[in-house]
């Protein structure tokens, strides 16, 4: 047996586990035991290079060396090749941080994700964790709000509302009880960044929530987490316990006079609960029906009290802003989109995964340079950005710059940063139909344009598919889209027309005639 234990990293991220990471970790442990080699397996989050999962990393004096995608049947040959010393192998990729996909990123929110043991507080601290909170605890609430406002951070959930302005509104409310609610109901297809963060660096989300609490004068936080994410639920629950035990949650945190506690609430499979008013209803134990605004939640939200609702990534970006200052964060990005965005490359894509990059990268760079085109080897025909309510973008528009304003100008939206790639076998009329069908399934039912519009929309598209009075039915569809956009209570009905219209506009050949 050697003296110091070798360090091997095998991710515990749900995606890695879904393709066998736990089996790989067990096989490495068994093989090492058989060879009487002393090693420690650390279950890190994912580096975001999901097509290489399970990605096994070995610590060497030069840095961490990556091997992937590793299967159980590769373990024998990896040991033979001396992978514990970084030896060469068909699955070797050299130093992890020199893999171009990773090296070209700008990791701020995800700086620690995949690097540290997600539930090791000392590891967290040695990589800059808690520095932002400790600075915030010495600042006045107004100063914290000002720092966040100056950083230019905008809501990463999809709406892009300036986070600092929201905080300022809540701070100004006179109320003995206020709440911080983290929206972790990441239901958009093609998005998984919240999940990756909660599994890979859950402490950064908690840190962001405590800072938010200090900033607006809230002492209670809720994390509303979807039930489809069992790994993230487990990680967040554990992380909250660790912070409680360390005295970082509870009354009077580190002698600052600030107290904060966090409750985790699990969703029950309703997509609409990602909409903020619906989420609040759900946290209160009710049907997740959308409410009319105003009042806005920052004035009257959860249990009628002033409430900040922020996405996971908005809150998890706050610690680095407090640690390094608003100027540092603002230096990334372009125009009115400051900082970085976690883009998620999904669907038929060769190198799917998470790319954190300053706003300003083009869709083409994401799909072609990072993503490597379609995994199937077919030609890429369309990309849907911003989730199921986002537009389909044709290849001819791939030079669009990924920021809130530029995408809006191109008739698309950034949403939560999802990029779903479709190859040339996609039938755009059935994608348009699916948008309506999805709205029909997931509508909360409160407002008529959404509840009934979606059903009529689906029926109208069925007629178009059947070749029935195509021109007239396209006009009816257009009219219906206008109505849903103008009269729906929330983005569910209001944005369902976006994928439908973009499909009709950019791919008219699929809509017959």
């Amino acid at each position: 047996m050697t003296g110091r234990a070798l360090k091997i990293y095998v991710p515990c991220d749900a995606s890695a586990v879904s393709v066998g990471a736990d089996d790989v970790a067990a096989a490495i442990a068994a093989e090492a035991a058989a060879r009487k080699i002393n090693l420690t397996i650390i279950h890190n989050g994912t580096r975001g290079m999901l097509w290489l999962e399970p990605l096994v990393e070995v610590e060497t004096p030069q840095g961490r060396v990556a091997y992937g995608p590793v299967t159980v049947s590769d373990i024998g040959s990896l040991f033979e090749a001396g992978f514990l010393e970084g030896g060469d192998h068909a699955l070797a990729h050299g130093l992890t941080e020199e893999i171009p996909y990773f090296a070209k990123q700008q990791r701020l929110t995800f700086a620690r994700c995949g690097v540290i043991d997600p539930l090791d507080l000392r590891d967290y601290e040695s990589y800059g964790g808690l520095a932002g909170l400790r600075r915030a605890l010495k600042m006045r609430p107004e100063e914290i709000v000002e720092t966040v406002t100056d950083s230019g951070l905008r809501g990463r959930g999809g709406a892009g509302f300036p986070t600092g302005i929201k905080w300022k509104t809540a701070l100004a409310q006179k109320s003995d009880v206020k709440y911080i609610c983290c929206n972790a109901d990441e239901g958009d297809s093609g998005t998984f960044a919240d999940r990756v963060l909660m599994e890979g660096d859950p402490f950064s989300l908690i840190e962001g929530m405590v800072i938010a609490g200090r900033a607006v004068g809230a002492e209670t936080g809720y994390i509303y987490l979807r039930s489809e994410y069992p790994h993230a639920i487990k990680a967040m629950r554990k992380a909250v316990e660790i912070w409680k035990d360390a005295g970082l949650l509870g009354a009077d945190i580190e002698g600052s006079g600030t107290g904060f506690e966090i409750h985790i609430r699990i969703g029950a499979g309703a997509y609409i609960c990602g909409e903020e008013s619906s989420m609040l209803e759900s946290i209160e134990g009710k049907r997740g029906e959308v409410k009319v605004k105003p009042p806005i939640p920052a004035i009257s939200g959860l249990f009628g009290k002033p409430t900040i609702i922020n996405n996971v990534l908005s809150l998890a970006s706050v610690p680095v802003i407090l640690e390094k200052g608003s100027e540092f964060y603002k230096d990334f990005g372009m125009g009115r989109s400051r900082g970085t965005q976690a883009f998620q490359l999904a669907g038929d894509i060769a190198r799917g995964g998470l790319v954190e990059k300053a706003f300003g990268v083009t869709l083409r760079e994401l799909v072609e340079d990072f993503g490597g085109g379609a995994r199937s080897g077919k030609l890429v025909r369309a990309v849907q950005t911003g989730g199921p309510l986002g537009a389909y973008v044709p290849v001819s528009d791939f030079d669009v710059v990924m920021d809130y304003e530029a995408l809006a100008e191109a008739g698309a939206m950034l949403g939560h940063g999802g990029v779903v790639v479709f190859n040339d076998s996609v039938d755009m009329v059935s994608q348009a139909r699916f948008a309506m069908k999805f709205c029909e399934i997931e509508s909360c039912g409160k407002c008529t344009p959404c509840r009934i519009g979606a059903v009529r929309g689906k029926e109208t598209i069925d007629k178009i598919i059947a070749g029935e009075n195509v021109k007239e039915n396209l006009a009816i569809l257009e009219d219906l889209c206008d109505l849903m956009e103008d009269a729906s209570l929330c983005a569910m009905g209001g944005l369902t027309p976006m994928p439908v219209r973009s499909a009709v506009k950019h791919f008219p050949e699929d809509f017959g005639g």
Partner: protein
Amino acid sequence: MAILINNLEHSGARAICGRYDNRPDALLEILRETQEAERYLNNEALVTIAGALNISRADIHGVVSFYPDYQREAPAGHVVKICMAEACQAVGCEALAAEAEAKFGAKIDGVKSSDGQIGLEAVYCLGNCALGPSVMIDGVLYGRVTPDRLHALLRERSAGEV
């Protein structure tokens, strides 16, 4: 689902309500925990919860019927949730679902297999969008699922029960 009998009691649900101090705002958590034991919510459980939280049965029915996670009937022996959202559509989840329906004689969100062992459900996003098609079997997530792999995973499970 008429519930006309007033004296139904479910001791498990009663205990779970107690753990949450009978707080109505914990209803979703209470329903989820109650369902974990029996895999569905029976009349006894719902009546007990309504009484303990002092909310109407109509309200409980409203909540239970709103959220897809809550079941009112015993589910199949193995529940296969197939992600049918866009990212998985782009890599062929529809073909996977159609083959599963044919193979097991079950329908997505419809009838179970004839032996009651396999139920198929559509789910809209499991957050594994870079490694689709994604499937969750009895709460365990699998990525890059082909029809062959799905059959193999289910075979392993039924073999374990013999």
